[in-house]
């Protein structure tokens, strides 16, 4: 009987995960059908890939903020690293691999790897410290990456890659092209229809996070979020697991960035600024810390709505700020927290009572049986 009960509860998380996958797949199918029927405006069509991108950004940031419990204010920085590294590699491979889809896949992997490496570099000095240092450092990181890429010149010609910072210090041979041209950024990329790939990438990221959370390493990540000293006392290497959570999160943001780049023919680093980082943080907070399905829905809705309500777009950041403050007030309100705790305790008591009653019934039955014999 105990076993049956446990199976049910185990299935509960699995079931909830499958509902999340289902929502993503259903959204994809519905959009495909609507598009086939010609019922989707070109505005919305143009939003499909950005929606996928922001969904991945939100669930990956949720891994850092909700699961690992560290505040990151520079998630767009990793997106930027992924976008530019992925796009550069993709453009370099244009002559070797003319087919756009495999090139996109490669650029997703490259974007993820580069962002992961940068994640390690950012993480090494900060993640050994305890406290809110990560927020400060990632905030600075986002700005630094933005100005680095804005001042970066990368060109490609028959002599190979040319690279310089601040000023273009190289001449390209005949037929060469600029890959990253300082403030102008990326240009001349071929757009790819990557909606389906975006959906697959969402599912992949969700799966990685769900599987991680239900494994040894994910448990360790959540443990150090809940209580660092206790985690150390049971032999869990805090820095290792902080790094793991943070780097996986950065890698996903990098892949999202590469996907984002594939949707445009030109792209500037200024697109990935502090506002973008905060925007993604708003998705995470609105969807609920640690709640991946919430992040998916919040990111999708909040990417579509403002575009559909273009007229009010000036007030968007204002509205987000108000909503964010509102949510923090509500969730950190001791009265409300108390209330929630009361409800939980009541539920616990109820089910404990139920268990006790069941046990008693069983015992009565058994004694009755014995007496019957």
């Amino acid at each position, binding site marked *: 009987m105990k076993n049956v009960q446990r199976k049910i509860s185990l299935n509960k998380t699995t079931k909830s995960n499958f509902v999340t996958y289902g929502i993503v797949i259903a959204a994809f199918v519905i959009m495909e059908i609507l598009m086939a029927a010609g019922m989707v405006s070109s505005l919305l069509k143009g939003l499909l890939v950005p929606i996928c991108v922001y969904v991945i950004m939100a669930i990956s940031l949720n891994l850092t903020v909700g699961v690992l419990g560290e505040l990151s204010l520079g998630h767009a920085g990793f997106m930027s690293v992924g976008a530019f590294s992925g796009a550069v590699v993709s453009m370099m491979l244009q002559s070797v691999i003319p087919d756009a889809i495999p090139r996109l896949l490669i650029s997703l992997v490259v974007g993820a790897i580069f962002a992961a490496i940068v994640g390690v570099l950012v993480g090494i000095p900060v993640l050994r410290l305890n406290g809110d240092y990560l927020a400060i450092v990632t905030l600075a990181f986002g700005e630094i990456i933005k100005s680095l890429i804005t001042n970066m010149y990368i060109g490609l010609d028959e002599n190979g890659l040319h690279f310089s910072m601040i000023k273009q210090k190289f001449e390209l041979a005949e037929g060469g092209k600029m890959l990253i041209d300082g403030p102008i950024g990326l240009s001349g990329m071929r757009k790819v229809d990557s909606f389906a790939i975006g959906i697959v990438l969402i599912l992949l990221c969700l799966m*990685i996070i769900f599987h991680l959370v239900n494994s040894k390493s994910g448990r360790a990540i959540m443990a150090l979020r809940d*209580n660092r000293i206790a985690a150390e006392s049971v032999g869990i290497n805090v820095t290792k697991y902080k790094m793991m959570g943070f780097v996986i999160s950065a890698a996903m943001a990098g892949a999202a960035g590469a996907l984002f780049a594939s949707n445009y023919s030109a792209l500037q680093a200024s697109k990935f600024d502090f506002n973008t980082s905060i925007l993604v943080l708003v998705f995470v907070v609105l969807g609920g810390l640690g709640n991946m399905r919430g992040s998916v829905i919040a990111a999708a809705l909040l990417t579509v709505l403002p575009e559909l309500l273009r007229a009010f777009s000036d007030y968007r950041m204002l509205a987000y700020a108000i909503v964010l403050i509102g949510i923090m007030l509500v969730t950190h309100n001791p009265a409300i927290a108390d209330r929630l705790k009361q409800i939980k305790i009541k539920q*616990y008591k109820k089910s404990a009572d139920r268990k006790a009653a069941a046990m008693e019934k069983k015992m009565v039955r058994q004694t009755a049986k014995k007496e019957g014999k």
Partner: protein
Amino acid sequence: MATRLDTKMVPIPSAGIVPERDSGKMPVLVAAHLGITFGGLKAVDDFNISVGPTEIAGLIGPNGAGKTTVFNLLTKVYEPTHGTILINGRDTHNMSTVEVNKAGIARTFQNIRLFNNLTVEENVKLGLHNSINYTTLEGVLRMPRYWKAEKEAHERALELLSIFDMQDLADYKAGNLPYGAQRRLEIVRALATNPKLLLLDEPAAGMNPSETSELMDNIIKIRDTFQIAVLLIEHDMNLVMGICEGIAVLNYGKIIAKGTAEEIQNNPAVIEAYLGKKKEG
């Protein structure tokens, strides 16, 4: 000078702090001249103790005496400013909290530190963390080793929970458990790390007398089944005098007495510093 304790399961200890059956064996813990200063305050000063491999030892003393600080030193939450700690003969210089745990010390906390948002079972599995064998990649890809190791961990966790008859609570969030159950869960989680020495910081705090007496039986049961040593801090004198074979008394960071329950109870310095005051209050 052998003195007898009148508890059923505890063998007769010698007059020293290490019981007779453990004498001649390497102590699981030796602390010598241990000390730490917090901004001029000597919170612990010249602390010496030796705990036998299957001993139940007690550390008592008035509030603020430095007992919890001793635990924090032993587990390297604080780096000692003086002294040496040996775990099974191994010097713990340069060891971190994590390494001390791997070397064989597990502990509970005076102010409970559970992983509140995780389930009871997950809390115990975190104690098992270092004995669960699969890589992160195998976990994410759900390879056969993942399923096998997780199944073993699940069974082991339930087995450990059954020490305190808590296996039915496996799926509850740790933070939602009643107080007594949280204290017991902390002990289970510590045990899951397969320690040689269990440090319990006020395990009976907040428990009613019947829970406390159950806890006493369970501490002895744990020592007997796992064949490990226990060092506990406790204010409940029934518990301390009932199950501790050797007791050290701490006052203002210094040990003022060491010995068996009877010796401690009759020690004038202890009566003055601690028990006397306690009786009046």
